């Protein structure tokens, strides 16, 4: 295993040097030799500048490796999809053929087929589908991003604390987390919306809470491994406090699985939020894909376009985030490096 790693590393180095040669020609090599002559002639000579250059070079190599791994065609498609969905969400006002009020207004020609004025057809009250799916992007993202941020921030904090202190702190935090993990997610969201009202903040809050134990559990595993490593002991010897060790030393070294899971879960939250809206538990004042599918569902036979397009948008958005997540995992996960 290690041998293969070394071999691939050597190969990378050779490729790098060849690239350099192509770019810099002989002149730059001679210049480099002259400027570093004393280090080549006197073995063991190390000064700050050279070590700095060495580490810079290695950093550049690893960065290039990372970017090269991200360059698979599927990942690029995913990034393009995500960028276009974000564009729709941010610049929806300029891109959509109708304003929000018009897309939520009352028009003639209910469930009309596609026409020049309504390129994708019309849904209930004759509303334009194209405009509605563009505005839907904004609402999907404004729910998915804050709720996952909430679960990541709180979950990571609780997970790190639980794993670092261990003992009864660990037991209490993880047991409460287990209760939420075992609780049916759909029921929790519906009941919470029933208690606090069908508002945007409530739905964000509900999914934010549901994600917390998942992230806590995820980071707990990697912190438990990192806690035993020498650099933690070194930091302790150097006199660092518990909080400093937890969040400055351990956390940056064990955050990787969270980053990968974060991208996947944006797609997951958009999906479950669409399911909630499909069941009729979403903010009725918002234009939302899941709710549009529920509206179009009753007219599936005579107006299939009203059901089709919002679903296509959900599929595309989630697919985009999943592709980016796949690419990130391939680039970051050390176990997959040699595949």
């Amino acid at each position, binding site marked *: 295993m290690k041998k293969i790693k070394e071999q691939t590393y050597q190969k990378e180095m050779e490729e790098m040097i060849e690239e350099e040669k192509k770019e810099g020609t002989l002149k730059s090599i001679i210049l480099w030799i002259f400027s570093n002559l004393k280090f080549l002639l006197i073995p063991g000579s190390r000064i700050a500048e050279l070590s700095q250059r060495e580490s810079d070079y290695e950093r550049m190599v690893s960065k290039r490796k990372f970017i090269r791994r991200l360059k698979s065609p599927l990942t690029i498609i995913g990034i393009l999809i995500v960028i276009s969905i974000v564009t729709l969400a941010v610049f929806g006002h300029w891109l959509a053929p109708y304003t929000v009020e018009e897309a939520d207004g009352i028009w003639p020609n209910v469930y009309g087929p596609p026409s020049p004025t309504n390129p994708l057809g019309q849904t209930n009250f004759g509303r334009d589908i194209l405009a509605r799916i563009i505005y839907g992007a904004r609402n999907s993202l404004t729910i998915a991003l804050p709720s996952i941020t909430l679960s990541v921030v709180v979950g990571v904090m609780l997970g790190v604390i639980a794993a670092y202190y261990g003992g009864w702190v660990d037991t209490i935090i993880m047991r409460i987390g287990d209760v939420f993990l075992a*609780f049916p997610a759909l029921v929790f969201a519906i009941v919470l919306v029933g208690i606090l009202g069908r508002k945007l903040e409530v739905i964000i809050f509900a999914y934010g809470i549901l994600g917390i134990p998942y992230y806590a559990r995820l980071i707990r595993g990697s912190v438990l491994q990192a806690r035993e490593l020498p650099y933690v002991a070194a930091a302790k010897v150097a006199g660092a406090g518990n909080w400093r060790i937890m969040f400055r030393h351990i956390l940056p070294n064990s955050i990787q699985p969270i980053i990968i899971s974060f991208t996947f879960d944006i797609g997951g939250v958009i999906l479950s939020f669409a399911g909630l809206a499909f069941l009729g538990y979403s903010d009725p004042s918002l234009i939302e894909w899941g709710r549009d599918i529920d509206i179009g569902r009753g007219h599936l036979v005579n107006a299939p376009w009203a059901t089709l397009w919002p679903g296509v948008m959900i599929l595309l958005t989630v697919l985009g985030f999943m592709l980016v997540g796949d690419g990130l995992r391939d680039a970051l996960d050390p176990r997959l490096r040699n595949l």
Partner: protein
Amino acid sequence: MSMLKYMIRRVFQLIPILFGVLILIFFLSRAMPGDPILAHLPPIFTPAQYAARARQLGFHLPLWQQFFIYLGNLFMGNWGVSISINRGQQVWELIWERFPRTLDIAIFAIIIASYVGIKTGVIAATHRNKAKDTIFRGFALIGVSIPIFWLGLLLQFFVSYKLGWFPAIGFKDMHFADPQMVTGFRIIDSIIEGKLYLVGDYLVHLVLPVFCLAFIFLATFTRQTRSSMLEILQQDYIRTARAKGCREKDVIKKHALRNALVPTVTIIGLSIGGLLGGAMLTEITFNLHGMGELLLRAILDRDYYVLNAIVFMTTIIFILVNLFTDMAYAYLDPRITYQ
């Protein structure tokens, strides 16, 4: 023996989780605005009438007393009486009318999804970066990103309405009478009565929902099997097996797949919780009159005992499946022991 001890200890660890879920759902459901007692009273009533009704239903006590009474009844096997959905009926009976149908599609879907998912995952891993791999990965990606209810609606439109192959909604032909209810499971009941055409009729109605649900979970299982197979195929012992002249079929099946199955089994176990949620969404889309519909009505009508019972049941299933998943590890990987 240590296995039995481990199991007993695990079961005892599960009791606080179950208790926590019960506390959570009991108080959350009571916090929802609305009063089911009003459904029992005539439109115009006196406060005395209201108090009498509340006393009759046991709602006059403080909430914590009600909780402990409910808990006591639950352990005695008394799940309470429906307040508003079907007044006076035992909750147990109400659930048992609905639950088998949801369980049927969930069981069929999980069997099909695990079998096909593991198979396609292995094929994708052994044909890495070839046409088969790309096709399976593409399907798996779509399966992970598609909203389950939208897939159901698409199937209803194209397969049922356009092609007319399978019925779109419901679980029986309306001309057929129901079999005598013995076990609650329609297939078994029909066989007991000797009406095999009812079994056929039921299965035809289940094809689309099961396909819908299986497709979603198939995707997850394929992805997991593929990535763990790829990791295992790099190991030294696979090379050893090939070098000693093992048949390729045996290398894949006995050396690689058995080791790769451990994470897949974890994913299958974890997805049971999501499966019940997905089965509820599917079964609402296909109008099967199962648990999902009952759950929505229980929340809408504030039928507390029905809601609590459904959550209680799904949690028990989720917990038990996780326990069995842990047991399955020892069978798949003899190196894993339980202390």
